[in-house]
């Protein structure tokens, strides 16, 4: 089973994404901010094959999480899909480097396609 980490501070969105992952046959875990995500990743028995990342979050935001993940050789290779409602989200993500971007509200069909691309079964 392919594992996905969902990082979003909004409980409803997190729940919605977890429902979708479950329906599509992924094993998904949800966390509420970048720090929780780092803690989870560093303590996990098995690393996820993809990360769905929100940008604007308390404590450690999406940019800071991405920087920390890239700086950690054990985590750097995990593909990231950024999901954001920021009006300038696409431009922000272009600055991050090699990550995928989907704007919120999320086109779920497109998200499933992207996941299949970055984490093929």
């Amino acid at each position, binding site marked *: 089973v392919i594992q996905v980490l969902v990082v979003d501070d*909004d409980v409803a*969105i997190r*729940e919605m*994404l977890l429902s*979708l992952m479950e329906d599509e046959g992924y094993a998904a875990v949800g966390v509420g901010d970048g720090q929780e995500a780092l803690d989870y990743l560093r303590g996990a028995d098995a690393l996820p094959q993809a990360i769905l990342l929100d940008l*604007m979050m308390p404590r450690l935001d999406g940019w800071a999480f991405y920087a920390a993940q890239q700086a950690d050789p054990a985590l750097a290779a995990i593909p990231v899909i950024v999901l954001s409602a920021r*009006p300038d989200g696409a431009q922000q993500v272009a600055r991050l480097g090699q990550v995928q971007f989907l704007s919120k*509200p*999320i086109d779920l069909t497109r998200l499933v396609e992207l996941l299949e691309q970055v984490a093929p079964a």
Partner: protein
Amino acid sequence: MFLLLLADPAPPPAVLAALARMPTDTAWALAADRAALDAVVEAPAVVLLDAGLSWAVPQQLLAAAHRRFPDSPVLLLTARSEPELIEPWLRAGIADYVRLDDLARLPHAVGCLAAPRATAHNLSEEFYQMLVAQSAEGIWCFELDLPLDLALPLEAQIAHIAGNAVLVECNDAMARMYGYARADELLGARLDSMLDPNDPRNAAYLQAFIRNGYRLVEAESFEHDRDGNERVFLNSLVGTIVDGRLVRAWGTQRDITARVRDEREQDLRAATGSLLAEALAYEATINNVARLLVPAMADYCLIHAAGPAGSQQLTAVHREQAAQQLLDRLGALTSTENAQPAHIIGEVLRTGSSLFQPEVSLEETLAALGEGEAMELFRQLGPRSYIVAPLRARGQVQGALTLARVAGRPPFDRRDLALAEELAGRCAVALDNATLYREARDALQARDELLTIASHELRTPLTAILGFTSVLQRRNARNTRLDERDAHILGALAQQGERLERLISMVLDQARIAAGRLELTREPLDLRALLLLLAAQLEPSLERHQIVVDVGEAPLLVEGDRLRLEQVFLHLLLNALKYSPRGGTIRMTARQRDARVEVQISDQGIGVPPAELSRLGQRFFRATNVNSHQISGTGIGLYVVQGILAAHAGELRIASREGEGTTVTVTMPQAVAEAST
């Protein structure tokens, strides 16, 4: 009156015709050479000399005429009157000249030359003196200590006149113009003590006198009276030339100081008025106003704004570069210390009434200043006369206008004070407008920022709603668990959520466009394909409408942001549907026209009232007839469409007849297709 006409060989017919029109008591004789001249017995009142075609012959005739009739003035008749052509004639001793195309002036010119004799003959000396004494105009005669050689270069002539002219005759009226009671108080004055020949305006006056053949009509001179006040005179004068040298000049002058001052003040009002009228960027404007007032009205000018912590210097302008630095330094000092002149300005800001110091005793002021750098700077600036006028708008003192004059310039008077107060009032209104404008602009910016944040906050719950809806739809598609009506409700949820998302996007877009932050990802694309796709997407949902598409067969290439252009044309198509609630045909055409692509979308809907057509596309504006048709909207859509098109160098035109329909025309630059090899 007897005239002698010298012409070789024969006078021009026009001259003969002019002589025929002379007063009936005029007799004249014609002489073509020296023999004929010598044969004339009676001394003519005036000798008329035809300049003819050559130079030498009439010159010889002129010399002969002078020898034969030394008391008869010679009037030259000439086809040309350029100064450089006339000057040799003046040096040769002609008294005046008349151009052949201006022969109507001949009787007058002859009359003038003959007049002194007539005066001598017919008017008693006493009567003549009385006329001069009674005249309200100044009448004067300057004589040159050293006659002026007319062959000197222009500059040398100006210097010679300025340095050698002495007032030898004048009337009381003239003396009064300089602040004296009687003529004999002024007589003997030298010209350069009355006017500054180095003042460019006076240099121009003397230059005109010389270039115009040592005569001048109604020319301005800028002089000063015994108290040093500037006076402006309007002069008419004529020089007397003897043996090719200027020996004296007679003239009259009228005092136009008041009129010139009126005109200057009007000019100043008009100039400041037009500057201040568009004063939204007020720092620059205030500076421009100060530059206008210096040197026109003052040697230096300060403008201060009243602030919560005292006054703030907005600008300081001095007429001299070196002194400007003193002023800047003083401004920096007094912004921190409560010293002069901040102290004086503070008083005006507090009381709201002007401070008028026509004559300042520098010593007293300095004593009040105390020690320090500010005092030294103040002493070097050396104000001798100043006005501090409050800038008052909406009943509040907004700042102060300071005007100062230094030594060498007459002090301010009451009239200057009134003008300064008026100009200060205008500055205040401009300053106030600028403040209000800035506040309004800041409020708009705050609103746009608020919209951006609010939109993001709206999107978060919408993301969950739409996401859950979509999850349910996907589950239902996988194994049907909902009946048709519930599935329809789920569809409606998704549709309305998307509609809400479009509204949020539009609100965001308009904030972005208003803030100039719309970003595009440009690529070459085929507008024809894009339009066909949009029409095809809309087709299934049409109920009362049909879309007729005519976009030709060839690609219509433009360069632009695909998503943004989709948004534009989708919005225009949805508008066409929305504003034709009873249905009908939507026509969409596209074609290439000149170097642009033109797209037209027309409907058969409610149209737009003619008076409101020009306001469509203004942010938040909606035509008034939408209410009677109960069509909801935000008044943002077309604003966004226009903003996106403008970023593509595109244009939007709207034509409409109320009740018949609307046609929207979009044009965009055509992209140059890349050469394929």
